[in-house]
């Protein structure tokens, strides 16, 4: 009950946030990224955190949603919502094929196979004609039920809705039979099997839930940006970023992935737009023309992945339960 109340409060605050910050496309854009990464990491966490099955290829499901939606809208002028549903179907088929083969095995096979599947999907999208190949797919105009989709605001609320649904699923799973079974599988597969848990079935179930949610986010993202190519929606970097967000925030918890996104996405944005470097120069602490000033200006913008990496190493060494563990909350 307490947790549901927390979701409601946070969703409420998030819902009025655009009214407070006004019509700033830049900040709305950053907030959309935060919501999306929070939802992506939460969806990944159902499989990776609860069931302990680390997927290194969640970009495949994100890309499946994005590409299916964009192809159906641009080529067949299909309703965006129906295109999104079609994306879920495609993502689930990829998930089922992967899971039904790989989940028969134990150990790191799933992690390895998830990378392989994601690369197969990426290379296919890059080389087929109907996916636009290396050019990707551009959407010039899109609308839904008369809502102006050129504004960012509908996507902000769309992402918020998906995040709330994802957290609702994550929360209800925690206290349900399926959630307990997934955690049992994570802790000890032999013990789990001997207690009557069908390992492959429950791993597949977690993968399907996770893939479906990830694909919805891919669809939403594609229509929001209105341009996709393989480097935007199918890249290994995206898969890694999702995992790191969950791990740094607190893997296996409901709120860890959200916390990870809230902290990391703005940090990455600050590094990307070089806020830190600029601030240091403005404060007169570093001269713009000095060696250090030039270095900051030229290199700090590309450093966000490095910073993620350093934070991850520190987390693994000192905070195995993520930043949420630091706050002393168990769940």
């Amino acid at each position, binding site marked *: 009950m307490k947790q549901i109340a927390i979701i409601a409060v946070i969703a409420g605050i998030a819902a009025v946030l655009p009214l407070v910050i006004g019509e700033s496309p830049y900040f709305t854009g950053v907030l959309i990224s935060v919501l999306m990464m929070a939802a992506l990491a939460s969806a990944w966490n159902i499989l990776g955190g609860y069931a302990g099955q680390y997927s290194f290829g969640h970009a495949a499901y994100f890309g499946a949603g994005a590409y299916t939606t964009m192809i159906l809208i641009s080529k067949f002028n299909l309703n965006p919502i129906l295109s999104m549903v079609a994306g879920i179907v495609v993502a689930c088929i990829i998930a089922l094929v992967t899971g039904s083969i790989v989940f028969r095995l134990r150990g790191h096979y799933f992690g390895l196979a998830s990378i392989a599947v994601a690369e197969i999907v990426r290379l296919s999208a890059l080389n087929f004609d109907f996916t636009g190949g290396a050019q990707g797919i551009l959407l010039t105009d899109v609308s839904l039920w008369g809502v102006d989709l050129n504004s960012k605001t509908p996507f902000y609320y769309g992402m918020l809705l998906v995040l709330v649904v994802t957290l609702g699923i994550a929360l209800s799973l925690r*206290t*349900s*039979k399926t959630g*307990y*079974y997934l*955690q*049992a599988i994570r*802790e*000890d597969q*032999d*013990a*789990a*099997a*001997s*207690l*009557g*848990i*069908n*390992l492959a079935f429950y791993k597949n179930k977690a993968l399907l839930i996770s893939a479906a949610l990830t694909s919805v986010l891919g669809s939403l993202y594609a229509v929001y940006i209105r341009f996709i190519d393989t480097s935007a929606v199918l890249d290994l970097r995206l898969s890694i970023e999702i995992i790191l967000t969950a791990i740094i925030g607190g893997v*296996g918890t409901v709120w860890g992935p959200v916390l990870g996104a809230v902290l990391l996405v703005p940090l990455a944005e600050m590094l990307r737009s070089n806020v830190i470097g600029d601030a240091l120069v403005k404060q007169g602490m570093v001269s713009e023309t000095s060696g250090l000033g030039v270095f900051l200006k030229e290199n700090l913008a590309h450093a966000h992945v490095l910073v993620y990496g350093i934070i991850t190493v520190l987390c693994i060494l000192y905070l195995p339960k993520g930043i949420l563990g630091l706050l002393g909350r168990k769940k």
Partner: protein
Amino acid sequence: MIQHLLYINHVSKHFGGNVAVSDISFSVDEKQIFGLIGPNGAGKTTLFNCISGFYPVTSGDIIFDNKTINKLRPDEVCHLGMARTWQRVKPLGSLTVLENVMIGAFSITHVTREAEKIAIEQLESVGLIDYAKKNAGSLSIGLKKKLELARVLATHPKMLLLDEICGGLNLTETETILGIIREVRDKGATIVFIEHDMKAVTAICDWIVVLNSGEKLAEGTPEEITGNPEVIAAYLGGGHNA
């Protein structure tokens, strides 16, 4: 007429050229406390792994409750009413004691509150209720063994396979566990019991099968077994003071 609940019919298990279990046959009757003993490497745990679905048998049949189970997965075997514990305990370490037992109970219910109720009953029956909210990984070995027992009991099994449930326990802890096992049998379950501790075995078992080097050496009542010269030579003679 007493019914055979478990039939082991000429079961062999080879690992490559290594014969771990060779042509073993015996049967376990309903409500029996059945002991499976033998020196290290006799094939007891291997046989358990075959019965509970973790190893496929090389040849032979395992029939439980009139069903051939040697092609089934461990979870399917569990759903037929056979539950096992592990010689090397396998607590679900980051979950609480209560949650561990609930996961056992979920094999007979889908409802979380129902599972919690069953789990609390089982924790009370093994005397672990005070530890319900503790992390399973933090328990001592004696309490972990009790947890294993509570967890399999929560599946409401017809037959319990206990792999050295008293191993590493002191005298009082062993007494408690044996008491629980007797109670469980009196409530109608059948128990197959691997044990090193001869005192425990002779104290509690109705029938004993002795394995040695993967083969059946002898079977009989505890009195017959302790008096059998072959058994003494193979097993008790090796420095054991039972």
